[in-house]
């Protein structure tokens, strides 16, 4: 096959990911995409034209050598392909499933300029799954101990990545987690039909085998302050990866009615606390016949599809249109196959409750999109026309602000007015010496892969700092409370 030229490669049609059919999957929590077969994977990998200047690598927040691993898949060297990915990304099974590739690597794929981009995410997932099911994974060799101890706060994508990168450089790593199990948002926020639990657990087990210590039920800030960690516990550096865990609400009347949840609460009850197995698991969830979800991001799609699986009639309310929906394209497509109702251009203005404070209706203003402004954005504007839908349960999925506990307990950590932890944009140093931060805590609510990219940068700089290669320098961190957090724009833009 190596003999194919670019033109022949580009002529190969995109291999669609096989899916569990919508009418079946809405009755279970099984994973929706089934995964490529070996033949399908090799066929899809053949579509990569191995550009001389691959844009996809720059389009990946952790810089995976994408053409190289695609070539290995094309040659049928699946274990080697997985190994290649692992050189820069240690959570390939998770990223292949939840990364917004359509906004990253696949968005800049040359093949995608004419037709479908190469299914990089699908292939990443394939390689990772192949490695897992065939047991070809070999634990990385840890270099000699450096004698340095680091604490990682939070065990979500950022925390796990930082722990991995630091351990791989010979530092002793302790991960502190507030919940009773590791994985962070990948456990409490991402549904099982998108990311099975065993994938996360295997990655955590791997870190444990590498000698990373996990401490659960530990609220850093309250139980041990940052100073406790640095002074009494003799950690040489800290990494804050506590994520964005403070749900946003709309501030409309009636939002404290019974039956109104934040997406965080709703998903946490179901996935972390297993309320879908109530009463075998004793955490309850109260969900009526008609469920409304407000928002159209990835979490909103997760919420919609979860609610559907629990047997309700589910409607999405969003004040813009499908084109502006911030969710990953594939998520919207999958959601659309699952018999949901869509109310685009609906802006909730009031939640109406009965005498017992239970939700009974939602009132929305119909919106329309304005003409594009100077930046080309079309804003939703009210039409003055209102509709009221009867409804039993409402889930707000509007994103999250940064969890306030650590900044509240350590005043040396500077935050902006949105609560985002301010860091040096190159080194991820915070305003407190020896403390680094990464993930949603420095970007605001974002994605798994961006958090991982952030954590990787932070970990590399922590290593340099620990080894005395760079000095503590925070002169570039803004003191302006209106300054934004870190914004990742893709490396070739």
């Amino acid at each position, binding site marked *: 096959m190596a003999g194919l030229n670019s033109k022949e490669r580009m002529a190969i049609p995109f291999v669609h990911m096989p899916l569990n059919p919508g009418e079946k999957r809405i009755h279970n929590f099984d994973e929706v995409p089934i995964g490529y077969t070996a033949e399908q994977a090799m066929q899809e990998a053949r579509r990569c034209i191995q550009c001389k200047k691959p844009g996809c690598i720059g389009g990946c927040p952790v810089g995976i050598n994408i053409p190289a691993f695609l070539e290995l898949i094309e040659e049928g060297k699946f274990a080697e392909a997985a190994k290649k990915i692992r050189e820069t990304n240690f959570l390939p099974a998770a990223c292949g499933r939840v990364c917004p590739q359509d906004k990253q690597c696949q968005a800049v794929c040359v093949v995608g300029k004419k037709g479908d981009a190469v299914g990089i995410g699908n292939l990443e997932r394939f390689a990772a799954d192949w490695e897992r099911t065939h*047991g*070809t994974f*070999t634990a990385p060799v840890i270099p000699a*101990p450096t004698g340095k101890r680091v604490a990682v706060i939070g065990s979500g994508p950022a925390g796990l990545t930082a722990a991995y990168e630091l351990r791989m450089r010979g530092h*002793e790593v*302790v991960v*502190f987690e*507030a*919940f*009773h199990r590791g994985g962070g948002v990948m456990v409490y926020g991402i549904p099982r039909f998108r990311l099975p639990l065993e994938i996360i657990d295997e990655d955590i087990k791997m870190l444990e085998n590498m*000698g990373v*210590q996990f*401490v*659960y*039920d*530990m*609220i850093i800030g*309250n*139980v*041990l302050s940052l100073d406790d960690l640095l002074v*009494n516990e003799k950690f040489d550096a800290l990494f804050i990866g506590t994520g964005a*865990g*403070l*749900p946003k*609400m709309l*501030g409309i009347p009636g*939002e*404290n009615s*019974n*039956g109104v*949840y*934040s997406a*965080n*609460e709703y998903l*946490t*009850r179901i996935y972390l*606390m*297993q309320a879908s197995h*109530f*009463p*075998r*698991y*004793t*955490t*309850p*969830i*109260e969900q009526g016949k008609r469920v409304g979800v407000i928002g159209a991001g990835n979490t909103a799609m997760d919420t919609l599809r979860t609610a559907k699986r629990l047997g309700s009639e589910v409607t999405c309310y969003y004040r813009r249109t499908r084109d502006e929906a911030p969710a990953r394209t594939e998520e919207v497509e999958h959601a659309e196959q699952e018999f949901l109702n869509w109310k685009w251009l609906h802006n909730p203005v009031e939640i109406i409750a009965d005498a*017992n*404070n239970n939700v009974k209706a939602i009132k929305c203003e119909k919106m329309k999109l304005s003409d594009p402004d100077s930046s080309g954005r079309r804003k939703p504007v009210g039409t003055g026309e209102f509709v009221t839908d009867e409804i039993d349960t409402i889930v707000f999925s509007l994103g999250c602000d940064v*969890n*306030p*506990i650590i900044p509240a307990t350590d005043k040396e950590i500077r935050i902006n007015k949105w609560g985002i932890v301010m860091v040096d944009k190159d080194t991820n140093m915070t305003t407190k010496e020896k403390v680094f931060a990464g993930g949603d805590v420095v970007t605001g609510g974002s994605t798994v892969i961006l958090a991982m990219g952030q954590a990787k940068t932070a970990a590399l700089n922590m290593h340099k700092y620990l080894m005395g290669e760079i000095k503590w320098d925070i002169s570039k961190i803004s003191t302006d409370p209106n300054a934004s957090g870190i914004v990742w724009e893709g490396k070739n833009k």
Partner: protein
Amino acid sequence: MTEKIESIIRNIRIDNETETARALEAAARLTGLNDAEKKELAAGVAALFYHDLHGKTGLIRLANQAEEVIATLGTAVLPFLIDEAIQADSESAAHFGRVIARGKGAAMKPVLEAINNHRGDDYAMMTLIATISYFKDPAALEAVPEILVASKSKNERLRAEALYAIGRLARNLGSDQFDNTLRLKMFDTCFEALKDKHSLARRNAVASLGKIAEKGMLTPDQERKVREKFNGFLGLDGANNWDNAYIVRHQAHQFFKFLKEEGKGQSRYHQTFRILEKRELCPDTYYYSIEAPLIARKLVAGQFIIIRPNEHGERIPLSIAGWDAEKGTINVIIMSAGRTSREINMMNVGDRLADVVGPLGQHSHVKKHDGVCVVIGGGYGTGAVLPTARALKKAGNKVYGIVGARNEKLLIMEDELKQACDEVLVTTNDGTKGIQGFVTHAMEAILKRGEKISHVLAIGPVPMMMAVANMTKPLGIETFVSLNAIMVDGTGMCGACRVSVGGKTKFACFHGPDFNGHEVDFDQLMKRQKMFVAKEKLALEAMGK
């Protein structure tokens, strides 16, 4: 025959796994070899042991297969194997050692002879000691004295190897094979070595003690000593001088689970959450003292914790009735209401809660006031006002306590409150004790005496807190109430605990739990607490099933 052997050996090549596997199978089928031929075959097959097999699963499988083939050749090849083992690097020697150990009793004699012949050669001794430890046959007991001698060697590497061998033998042979004298010697040797200045020796002594414990070969007294040592290594004894070598800490962490008092020792940050004390305060209401040293060290009056009693359990928020930072305990009062509280109340002293998370929430408002401070506890809330009562007293205030209950039998924590306050007033709805009526009547009694009340804290059922707030509002008395909203995570992540305070949405877990009672929307709070009533009933019904 020689030709056959040669052709087999020729096909043993690491660059061709299929050929090699086939050759090994052929070798296993050979019969009627004389001693010289056996040795020739062993030498050829053993070539596999010398390759760097790290991470190469196919080759490792082949090497294991090769071990089996050589083992079938019997005693004739033993001298050759022992010689090779002594000269080999330690990884290759492990393969030879395992083959030799398969020779069982017959193989022990030549090994002991080799030890005699190589005294003073520490490198050879290391290999031979390791070889002994691979034996799964009681014949190995004969060699234990040699291991014990080696464990005192001046050579730190040999010492470490011998210490490791003790544990491996314990694991391979099992507890039945060792008599008490031998057990004591093994224990003393390893325990003494915990003081070794060489970290590898310490690590291996830890591993061996762990394995001996795993096989149930420690007396309770020995076990206690080991636990203390491991605690020290991990820094759990509070002495703050844990072992500075990671390998030692890691090993102690790994083996702690085999010491009967499990729990502790997972790391210096591990808390057992064990119930140390339980007593009934009144029907269905219990007082607990729970081991949670890290939390106890940091608690401040007003904060709360979240408990998840078991793996299938719910996370429920609980007020704190006190703590002892020195003993590392926290005290809570739990009244059976729903499924989770009932499940906790079925637990007993010695049981462990799955998770205790805290301290959570903000501190209560403590400062010196002009007038008196009044703390009011209703029902299970009586325990929750204790810490703040103590703190207000400590800040130099005159503190009155009010306890309310339906009847005398349901009154709890009166004595404890008396110790924390200048005076305690009791109210019962039926008049069986103290003032007949509600806690507000006791407030009136204090006001009637002409005393100025500057600060009130009320914790208990929502109607009680609401009644207190309604009474103090026109009088302009600062009043705080502690809101027990429904929660999941308790850190601000989920927003289940939303309450309306002064027209704004607040999170009880992060902004509270104490709020200005005059601003709280109690009506909404009461209704929100009923959100899962139907589900709670189902959960309770499912409890017996």
